[in-house]
């Protein structure tokens, strides 16, 4: 149906990778709905081209440029930047109904049946089940709703500083009124449930239709070894207890997305068998250019010290480049006699 669409949002090149995997997984499971992605100006030009290969519509949202009420809202509440971008999805009135999905989600089977649900349908949040998680939700685009949301954002803000708080305040009857608007948890299975309720995960995890990689470590932050087809990582990381989903994410990325990135010259040629080192290197360089959401899209500027530190803390030190020990040594030698 042409008037229904899946919608996602990418605010930088790292999240584009997530969006691409999401779009690719939807296609793989033969959705008949449209695919739409909202992007911000931080997404680089080559990445936009790649997005166009996967998505039917790529829409640039620039809250600062809009000059409308959203801009005004942002002036009052600058901390709500990304949230206000996300609210733009209500402006897609070319569609009668949409399913919004975060870029850090991935579908495991066809979920077109979600379009039978009404606004606002969503799955409970694992941290506070009386709130819904705004990673996956069904809604009807409407300028009226959009304006009401903006108004609420301006007047009251969001209790958690993000879109989830705002939407839960707005659709506050979700928890109690209509059970039909409660999507089963398998439509938004967050990786947290692995360690918060492992037995349930073992019993029902295999039915999952959508996984949501919550938390600071996103799938693209891990290192994937294409020889063993598995994630390399610290076993103390609780999500590594069941790395199947991460491996699945990476498998999709390597098979469907990486060739596209190569075609557009974002990643060096790796057609003759994918070498893990090259891929991870290329990928970490990509996240390098994407680490700064406020920087102009392309070319990536020299990183600030703070950004470099942040990257170390993500386990993504550029050990073959700026962070090599020779550079560390030079730093040390400035104060050693």
């Amino acid at each position, binding site marked *: 149906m042409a008037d229904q669409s899946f919608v996602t949002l990418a605010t930088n090149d790292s999240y584009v990778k997530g969006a691409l995997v999401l779009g690719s997984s939807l296609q793989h499971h033969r959705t008949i709905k449209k695919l739409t992605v909202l992007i911000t100006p931080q997404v680089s030009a080559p990445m936009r081209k790649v997005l166009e290969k996967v998505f039917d519509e790529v829409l640039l949202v620039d809250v600062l440029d809009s000059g409308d009420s959203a801009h005004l809202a942002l002036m009052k509440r600058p901390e709500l930047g990304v949230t206000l971008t996300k609210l733009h999805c209500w402006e897609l009135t070319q569609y009668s109904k949409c399913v919004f999905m975060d870029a850090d989600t991935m579908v495991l089977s066809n979920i077109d049946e979600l379009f039978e649900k009404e606004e606002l349908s969503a799955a409970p949040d694992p941290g506070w089940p009386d709130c819904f998680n705004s990673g996956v939700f069904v809604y009807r685009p409407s300028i009226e709703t959009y304006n009401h949301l903006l108004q609420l954002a301006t007047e009251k803000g969001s209790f958690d500083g993000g879109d989830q708080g705002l939407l839960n305040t707005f659709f506050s009857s979700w928890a109690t009124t209509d059970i039909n608007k409660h999507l089963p948890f398998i439509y938004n299975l967050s990786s947290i449930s692995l360690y918060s309720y492992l037995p349930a995960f073992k019993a029902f995890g295999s039915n999952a239709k959508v996984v949501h990689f919550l938390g*600071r*470590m996103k799938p693209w932050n891990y*290192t994937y070894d294409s020889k063993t087809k598995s994630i*390399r*990582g*610290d076993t*103390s*990381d609780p999500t590594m207890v069941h790395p199947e989903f991460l491996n699945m994410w990476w498998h999709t990325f390597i098979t469907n997305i990486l060739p596209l990135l190569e075609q557009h010259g974002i990643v060096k040629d790796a057609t003759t068998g994918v070498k893990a*080192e090259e891929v991870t290197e290329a990928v970490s360089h990509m996240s390098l250019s994407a680490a700064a959401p406020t920087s102009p899209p392309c070319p990536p500027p020299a990183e600030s*010290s703070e950004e*470099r*530190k*942040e*990257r*170390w*803390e*993500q*386990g993504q*030190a550029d*050990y*073959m480049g700026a*962070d*090599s*020990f020779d*550079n*560390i*040594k030079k*730093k*040390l030698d400035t*104060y*050693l006699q």
Partner: protein
Amino acid sequence: MPLVRSLSMTSLNGLPQWEDEDLPVEDLLLFEVAWEVTNKVGGIYTVIQTKAKITTDEWGENYFLIGPYFEHNVKTQVEVCEPLNPAIKKAVDTLKGQGCQVFFGRWLIEGSPYVILFDIGSAAWNLDRWKGEFWDACNIGIPFNDREANDALIFGSLTAWFFKELTSQFDDKPNLIAHFHEWQAGAGLILSRFRKLPVATVFTTHATLLGRYLCAASIDFYNKLDQFDIDKEAGEREIYHRYCMERASVHCAHVFTTVSQITAIEAEHMLKRKADVVTPNGLNIKKFSAMHEFQNLHAMYKARIQEFVRGHFYGHLDFNLARTLFFFIAGRYEYSNKGADLFLEALSRLNFLLRVHRSDVTVVVFFIMPAKTNNFNVETLKGQAVRKQLWDTAQCVKEKFGKKLYDALLKGEIPDLNKILDRDDVTIMKRAIFSTQRQSLPPVTTHNMIDDSNDPILSTIRRIGLFNNRTDRVKVILHPEFLSSTSPLLPMDYEDFVRGCHLGVFPSYYEPWGYTPAECTVMGIPSVTTNLSGFGCFMQEHVADPAAYGIYIVDRRYRSPDESCNQLTQFLYGFCQQSRRQRIIQRNRTERLSDLLDWRYLGRYYMHARHLALSRTFPDKFEMEPNAPPKTEGFRYPRPSSVPPSPSVSQHSSPHHSEDEDEDERYDEDEEAERDRQNIKSPLSLGVLPQRKKKQHGEYRN
């Protein structure tokens, strides 16, 4: 074929004989910083704990250990008190005033040194700020998901802060020396240098992070040492930040030391700095007042192991326990790093040799390597129960027998031996014997292994087929848990177990120091080690004929794995061919090497490192002869004048065990021991052995 009888005396380069001037310890404060102070997580605990005695003897009240606070450790090992030194007290109070928990007390070990323990959790709220400071100091960031590295940073920041509070109270003296162990303590060193604190720093690497990883990855490590792109290797293994912390600490230290020659070579390539001093690890040697007490202990604990073996092999006890040798390997379960792979292969060859030569010697090999288990297995427990039952039956019959005999003798009769046991007794005995029949082979492992099918030791045993068959002369028992005197199976402590064994086998590929063979040595138990272990290098350097002294050194550095395996097999086979008397003599010699490993001697390397650090940090106050390379006279253990009791296989094409044969062996324990003592105590009295051929320093150090 005649035995090769070499009576030549060979002297090797021994301990350095530099004359360090005594440091004015009253004007100095010495701190030793390590994550394992009062906190037993690995081998460094042993180093620090055993060394404390000689260090407090030298430094008295001016010696402090700095470590992390863990409630359980403090409750069991530390007597909390107030610092007597006012400056220390002030610095501690400052940290406490800022909301960080600091504990001061005496560590209840030999020497009872002072400890300063920082509660990492209580200071964790500073983490973000300290990460920023550390970034400013060295441009190294720490991933938020590496808890250990974050703890190490908090620990280091607290240490450097403490030093700052302390040194700000002093003008000219006292001067501070801080000795840091391993990367977990290294952040404190880096930050102290960054803040230009007047502290002389020493950093000791016990094993490099990257070396351990690379060795475990079964790469031909030692032959490729100079070819690694180390930044890349560390980055790919996701230990880049740890590796950087370690390497930055090494780079910042005034003096850098490693625990052995082999680790010095490793560090030169993995950390890109030559060690200034090699500081070998010692032990606190327990001296028995009675001569050869260790031999009595060996006999006593051997009997305990024999009891266990009787139970474990019930129904299969067709071998002579008096001619059974106990070998063991023990340590962390690192299959190839600890050389378990080589050992198993050699055992398979040894089994073959013993069978072909129809030897009556049986070898029972224990693998004491903890793995994940679900407790003891039923078959093993049953074995011990059966043994107990037979013992009880024998006791019971003996009692009745004794009573009847006594009654008969009282009556003045010789009892009728056919009637002295009645039918009931015979039935009891028959029943007991029936219960010892077993359908299965004696189990290879004593526990239910969680990952039985993938366990590397068990997989290898399956492949080489060492299943404890009757025909096998080599029997294998995997005990995947540390020993304990409260175990229902083998109720012995590790030390007692070692004493009861005949040979410890540690053919490690990666072993920066190697306390296990060292512990064997001080208990008078011979052991196998390698020239890739710190201990093996040390012994090779100081003992002319190590095998005669019960230190068999397998060459794993310059030989192929197959050649190393053959060499190990020969050592083992040679050991099996020794007579009881030869083994006793060998144990006596082994035990005499203890003095070499005593901290009282080895501690001087640490003194030298400290002196060197002071002279580099405060050159105008502490002088040291500029390039006074440690002179290398010292102890030398010559080849024993009697026959080395370690014949190699080729010399025995046929078995011969006659005890008479040893009679011609000239062995005078007292004379030999006296000479060894001379060699240690007065290394410079060269006149005693005039024909000694001197070797150049470094000749044995390829």
